[in-house]
């Protein structure tokens, strides 16, 4: 006779993202239904950086999904800035990364930091994608900017525009003086770990 000892249920989280991601929201999440475009493994990086740690971050102005425009130098003397370039809307890893930052807002707030999310997609595409990210309720707390036209101009200025026209998966941490303090041109196939970014934020003057 079978002895019924335990029953374990395994709940598979998104995240969280971390994300987490709400963590239930991710590229693997049913929140995205069948809308995530499958992507094969890509060349990890495919560009040459044009900036380095210690440089003044190149200024830019880009249209925001919520309307209006955002200018990087607007934050100078006020807030630290993280720029998160992700390659493309509606792709697997990108659809995990920003929902993770969305639930991790307190790490940015604690370190007087604003996050600017940038892709080379156009505004309507980003509008639909970011809305889908928030199907569980709420909205992204950080601005999402479109580097669509002239195509990838800001990504190109930083040296993170790949040869196929999408950007790298890259993070730039910029202090209140506008100086680049950290650069991570990440393997495009993988999501940067939250703890590494948090560690860099904690090094900044608040």
């Amino acid at each position, binding site marked *: 006779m*079978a*002895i*019924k*000892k*335990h*029953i*374990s*249920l*395994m*709940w*598979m*989280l*998104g*995240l*969280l*993202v*971390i*994300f*987490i*991601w709400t*963590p*239930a929201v*991710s590229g*693997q*999440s*049913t929140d995205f239904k069948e809308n995530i475009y499958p992507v094969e493994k890509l060349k990890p990086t495919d560009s040459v950086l044009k900036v380095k740690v210690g440089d003044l971050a190149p200024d830019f102005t880009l249209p925001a999904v919520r309307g209006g425009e955002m200018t990087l130098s607007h934050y100078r003397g006020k807030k630290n800035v993280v720029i998160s370039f992700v390659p493309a809307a509606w792709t697997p890893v990108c659809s*995990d990364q920003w929902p*993770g930052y969305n*639930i*991790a807002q307190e790490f940015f707030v604690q370190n007087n930091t604003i996050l600017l999310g940038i892709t080379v997609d156009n505004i309507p595409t980003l509008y639909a994608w970011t809305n889908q990210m928030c199907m569980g309720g709420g909205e992204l707390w950080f601005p999402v900017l479109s580097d669509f036209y002239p195509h990838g101009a800001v990504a190109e200025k930083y040296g993170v525009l790949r040869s196929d026209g999408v950007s790298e998966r890259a993070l730039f941490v910029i202090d209140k003086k506008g100086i680049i303090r950290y650069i991570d041109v990440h393997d495009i196939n993988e*999501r940067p*770990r*939250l*703890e590494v970014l*948090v560690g860099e934020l904690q090094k900044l003057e608040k």
Partner: protein
Amino acid sequence: MNELYRAIEGRKDLKGKMKLIGIGTGNSDFEVGFFRKKYEVPFPLFSDEDYSIHKAIGEVRTPYFIGVRLKGDGSAEVFYSKLGGFENANKFLDSMVKLSGL
């Protein structure tokens, strides 16, 4: 999920017989720990940073539930494996108990 945990813990007939764990696919220990603290998750959560568990299961989308019956001989039998969440924790728990044959 916290509601499901409380539903399990609140039922005397399930005491010591049913446990709930969570697995964060593609998440680091730090990310899972942050999530646990932020959402006050009362049951154990584990990170699956390299997706090894996720791959072993079949790279399912989430949320995904697996019910496993652990037998006295050390073997385990899956009695439930399904994609998607639930509307009502108590109803979900009732269906799991029924399916498990507990």
